[in-house]
């Protein structure tokens, strides 16, 4: 009895941690770039995941998770740093705040009556980031379920714990989605850039053989470090821009 409770709790907590990581990425991309392509990415990743789990089952333990972490982490870091770079330049006044929105409306104007097609067009960035985040975290949840469930001989119980954790995290995501959408656009892009870069450093590092001090908790330290560096850079660039502006403009 108590071993069943322990198996359920261990699987539930470990799966919830992985689901929160996936949710962070999905929320970040969905709120900033739109939900359609992001949710398609989530759906396709879930489908691929289900097929992998159905095809491989317990053999999942032999997939080289280190290689997968490295590839996903490195790509997330490269992509996250691009967002962070632009967000810092916008926040410090070196790029217009709405240059992407302007570029988008310009493209739509040029496309003439293609407004409906524009809104229905696939955003491959959102799709790819959501797809990779959900697939990687989903695979990790599958490893956890197989590890805890198979070793204890309670696979059904472990699956139930993982499903419960997933449902709880999805509900939490639906609750926080509304408030997140009211945050100013560049502030959100700044935060998303910090999150994607931090997850990229963490997973990419693990894939390259790094053992983080403190284990998974180290992700919080990485987020704090990347956030602090970005904040300091924004402040320094803003001060530099103001110092270089002619006194007449400033007055």
């Amino acid at each position, binding site marked *: 009895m108590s071993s069943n409770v322990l198996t359920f709790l261990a699987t539930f907590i470990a799966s919830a941690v992985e689901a929160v990581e996936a949710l962070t990425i999905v929320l970040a991309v969905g709120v900033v770039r739109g939900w359609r392509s992001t949710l398609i990415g989530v759906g396709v990743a879930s489908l691929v995941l289900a097929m992998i789990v159905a095809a491989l089952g317990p053999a999942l333990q032999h997939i080289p998770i280190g290689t997968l972490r490295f590839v996903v982490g490195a790509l997330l870091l490269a992509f996250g740093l691009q967002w962070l770079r632009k967000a810092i330049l916008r926040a410090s006044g070196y790029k217009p705040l709405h240059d992407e929105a302007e570029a988008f409306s310009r493209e739509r104007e040029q496309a003439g009556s293609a407004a409906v097609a524009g809104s229905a067009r696939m955003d491959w960035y959102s799709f790819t980031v959501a797809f990779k985040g959900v697939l990687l975290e989903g695979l990790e949840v599958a490893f956890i379920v197989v590890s805890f469930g198979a070793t204890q001989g309670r696979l059904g119980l472990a699956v139930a714990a993982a499903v419960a954790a997933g449902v709880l995290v999805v509900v939490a995501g639906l609750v926080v989605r509304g408030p997140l959408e009211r945050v100013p656009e560049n502030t959100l892009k700044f935060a998303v850039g910090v999150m994607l870069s931090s997850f990229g*450093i963490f997973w990419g590092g693990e894939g390259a053989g790094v053992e983080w001090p403190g284990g998974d908790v180290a992700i919080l330290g990485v987020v704090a470090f990347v956030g602090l560096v970005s904040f300091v850079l924004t402040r320094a660039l803003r001060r530099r821009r103001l110092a270089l502006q002619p006194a007449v403009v400033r007055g």
Partner: protein
Amino acid sequence: MSYLRSFGRFWWNFIVGDDWRVAAGLAGAFALTWLLEDNGVAAWWLLPLAVAALLAGSVWGEAGGSN
């Protein structure tokens, strides 16, 4: 053919983006991290520091160019 070109452009923009030096620096930092870890040296500190340096260099360079 145009599909292949747009597919290639998507991945180039996704990985390299506006500043190829950041992507090249990341590749070097990952390689160095792997090399150090493979030789038994704890290198968890390398990637965060490399990211900080690459980000600072990139935004500072872009801001300098626009003045």
